[in-house]
């Protein structure tokens, strides 16, 4: 099966994937390198008091992921309104027997 991607397809993939991976993986790595807490939640002691907060606000990280999802949603809307390409989705080829 041969599928052709347009510039818009590639831009949607790159932008949405880039934003989501930036929020989850890249800033997640930064969070680990910055020391405790290694996650997006604050670190508390036994009494429940916050003893360390994340270096990167989880609002920023989740915002980046949501932005990536929004890009995909806009791409979906674009596909709904953009004219479809003519021609069948698959092509058949005649095969001759030996």
């Amino acid at each position: 099966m041969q599928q052709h991607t347009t510039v818009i397809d590639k831009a949607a993939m790159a932008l949405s994937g880039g934003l989501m991976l930036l929020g989850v993986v890249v800033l997640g790595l930064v969070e680990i390198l910055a020391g405790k807490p290694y996650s997006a939640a604050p670190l508390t002691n036994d009494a429940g008091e916050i003893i360390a907060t994340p270096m990167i606000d989880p609002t920023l990280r989740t915002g980046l992921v949501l932005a990536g999802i929004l890009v995909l949603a806009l791409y979906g809307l674009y596909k709904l309104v953009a004219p479809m390409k003519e021609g069948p989705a698959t092509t058949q080829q005649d095969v001759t027997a030996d």
Partner: protein
Amino acid sequence: MSYQAANPLADEFEFELGGAWTAYWLAFLRVVTGWWFFHAGVTKLIEDGLAYTYGPAYLKQMTGTALGPIPVLMGEHLGWLIQAMVPLGETLIGLGLMVGALVRLASVFGVFFMALFWIGNASFGHGLVNSDFMGLLLFMTMIVLATGRYYGLDAVIEKTKLVKRHPKLRYLLG
């Protein structure tokens, strides 16, 4: 070892994207994801009917999130709608996925629900990539792979004259 750029799965242990196991697994995943939402919705309907008061209360506590004031405003001004739409929406999304009808459209709403659950739920005590986020990704997988076409009603609906006349409906089906 051979490597095909067009199909990296093509190897001596090939797992065809159009193969029987793929169809089986995507259909299975779709039905289980559907049951997850159907169960969540139908039990709310049994308990509270269309007056699920926790819905707007949940949205109102979502201050300071990446969604800004949107969920709080929804909770404050659309409470009556949220009370009805949470149980009804979850039930319909679940039903759609289980029978494989309008799967992509249902999954868009599933992504919307899961985004609110992910952002507002548990302050990421289990990390940013938690079960809510994985659920969100499941719905996105349903959209990307059009899982309604595997043993689902969308496979039948897409063959109707209506869809053939309006092929763009396939973006909502499948």
